[in-house]
């Protein structure tokens, strides 16, 4: 067992992990941050996406030890401390960018990173950027729409927006 320390959503955490412990398991089981989901176990579906030192990382493909000393953000750390949703979160809700919701945390993390790097992406760029995040419910249409709306670009009116 090895002692590691990392900053998660602005708070410092320490814990003992085995060398084989994956970051996603450390987050879910040790820190009880269960918003980060395990979908495919093999780093393809993107449900486990988190930010590590400012980069998108599939947390089922990184050892917890590799994140020792790192600054990690999970979906639980995206909304403001008072609970106000981020623009991306609000858009996913308003534009019906989710159904079962299991892929949603990964989608939120990926979309948030995309808009940090590219505040006004084209629809084509959104699609390209989301290739590593699988959704089985929505057909992606409203996910793309939500991200375009979150970037402040005009989208066709969506029924879910009130």
């Amino acid at each position, binding site marked *: 067992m090895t002692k590691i320390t990392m900053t998660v959503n602005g708070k410092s955490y320490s814990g003992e992990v085995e060398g084989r412990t994956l970051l996603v398991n450390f987050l879910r089981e040790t820190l009880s941050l269960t*918003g980060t989901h395990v*979908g495919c176990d093999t780093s393809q579906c993107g449900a486990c996406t988190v930010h590590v030192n400012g980069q998108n990382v599939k947390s089922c493909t990184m050892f917890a030890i590799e994140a020792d000393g790192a600054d990690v953000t999970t979906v639980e750390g995206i909304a403001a401390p008072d609970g106000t949703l981020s623009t991306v979160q609000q858009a996913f809700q308003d534009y019906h960018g989710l159904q079962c919701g299991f892929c949603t945390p990964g989608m939120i993390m990926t979309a948030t990173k995309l808009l940090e790097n590219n505040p006004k992406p084209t629809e084509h760029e959104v699609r390209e950027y989301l290739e590593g995040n699988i959704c089985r419910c929505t*057909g992606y249409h409203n996910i793309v729409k939500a991200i375009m709306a979150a970037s402040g670009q005009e989208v066709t009116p969506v029924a879910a927006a009130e």
Partner: protein
Amino acid sequence: MSSLARPLPHDAARLHVTGQARYVDDIPTPAGTLHLAFGLSEVAHGVLRGIDLSEVRNCPGVIDVLTAADLPFDNDVSPSAHDEPLLATDRVHYVGQPVFLVIADSHLTARRAARKGRIAIDPLPAILTVDQAMEANSRFEEGPRVYEKGDAKAAIADAMHRLTGTIEVGGQEHFYLEGQAAMALPQDGGDMVIHSSTQHPTEIQHKVAEAVGLPMHAVRVEMRRMGGGFGGKESQGNALAVACAIAARHTGRACKMRYDRDDDMVITGKRHDIRIDYDVGFDDAGRVAGVNFVHKLRCGWAMDLSLPVADRAMLHADNAYHLPTCRIESHRLKTNTQSATAFRGFGGPQGMVGIERVMDHIAHHLGLDPLAVRQVNYYSEAGGPSAPPPPPESISAKMKTEAVQTTPYFMEVEDFELHAITAQLADQAGYAARRAAVAAWNADNAVVKRGVALTPVKFGISFTLTHLNQAGALVHVYSDGSIQVNHGGTEMGQGLFQKMAQVADASFGCGIERIKVTATDTSKVPNTSATAASSGSDLNGMAVRAACEVIKARMAEGVAAYFGCDARDIRFVGGQVSDGAGREISFDEAAQRCYEARISLSSTGYYKTPKVAWDRIAGRGRPFYYFAYGAAMSEVAVDTLTGEYRILRSDIIHDVGASLNPAIDVGQIEGGFVQGAGWLTSEELVWNGDGRLRTHAPSTYKIPACGDRPDVFNVELWSEGRNREDTIYRSKAVGEPPFMLGISALMALSDAVAACGTGYPDLQAPATPERVLAAVNKVRRG
């Protein structure tokens, strides 16, 4: 104004976007919770000679290992024929069948230990393919089921034209993003509380009770949400829940199990693949005189739900088309593969692909526009107040003289809307102009060929096992005016809970913020049917409304007594309860006053679907309360050098009746279309010669990704939609029907390939680039 019919977001949207929504694997576990994993058969068929578990037991962290001999009561997880042992007994029947159960202190420990079991099996010949099963007469039921209307053989023989052909359509992995998961919490007296990711909590309760030797009242199943179901959690969760309960009983500790994705894909059943042979006779206009279908479905090793799945394939062999004579022969083949199970559409899509292929083939043979051939075969439009009359030039108008037409199972088609839907879609999406543009493109381009197709959907709504068409609800109004709604349906992302809250709000007029729909719970509403067959809103909505109306009537009496007016004058609107003449109190105050007046503020509600009755052996009667309709037009581009393709554009008009929530319904249509197109294009399941599934992860099994959906995607609810039957606020079921709109993508690919030469593409499904390339070469050969 009530929230009914408004496009409200999913009820848990805020929880999902913040990561707070809990799935089974996210529920905090009691200290000492144990984790389970199955040891699996590596052989497709054989006699179990012995299991050496010594290395498994020696793994640090392993608490115990169970085999079939250790099970205290019933060793069965089948939803139908009692033919599916939780753990293999004397034989193994497929690669991936659970043989032993490891109980350990962590998920990873259990999985690693499970790999160390040594299972001795004497292999037997395995039946893997349709041909092998037919040759060995390996099947469920005594022989093929046959539905017959008129003398199809004679009609085909007498027809001006005749075609025969075969289409093979692959199965489909559900790939719910949340894998199967369950947890059992042992209670005093041996009772069990089960958390299970299931579409069918009552079935879980039933199978767990059998497995631990207790009546159903000793088992409570709770299910708040699934991370997707699609039919894959109708019966396939039984094994995990039962394993957890047995291990919890055995150890006295909470036990939890989730399948790793690869295990999930190897162990659980998928959509039935099918081979359809067709023989059709028709006239110069493409009008079918008679058709003969032979369905051969691979059902896998156990019966599961294969009989009603295969029945529904037969019941959709007509799709939208009036077949004057028809014969459908259905073989339900038993093979040494995963036990194929429910998947969105439940056989309907397979049956529908058969007749759509026939329409495509007829049009190609006669050199006619495929849409014209489809329209000439449509059932007669119902017309009347719910639909505009068909345009006068429509061919169907000439056929209106016929009495109400019947399906191949003799059900009258009384609510047909597809003439109007098709005309509107063809107009809006520019069918004629775009067909011409595609033809011009294909004349000018040798390598990239385009194709376009417009296909209809008519899907029967009701469980074909008639007694399942019932539902219950339990509604409480608390003294602070907040309302708790519970019903038998389960939430898997389809927005059922929000729709049910909207239905309750329509009764109480109290504002949707006062209403909470709580986790499905077998101790609140008993004897529920699976949330399946698109029935969730239809059945549970009526039950919820019934419960709400009982309480509302009691509250009206109570408030009328307070106001000193007639209860019939009491109105519930805008969070107020009024006498219609100026006196009003808030809903909250009304609840408090009713409580103080000793009025019961709790009620159950119950609903059963009227009119449905049929004979599934004879294939006669009315299995469906009504039909849901839709149409899709897709355009594709195919690279004829590689077989690769893209869906350029899809336009859809779909009939959801009077929508309970248009945002949720549009979402179902978009997602259903993409999933249906995935089934017929990129999603390919491959077993090797030993019966081992080689596509058991997203690395090898390709579900649509974000870039695969159509570049242009226009989805519209049919503006004239209103259910002719008395369903919940005249809405229509929406879960499954849009899935089959994806058939338009397959037919558009066929159209594009046909532009390569003179031969018929004979495109098989899934139409992977390899199959498209093969079809291109075939067409070029003529």
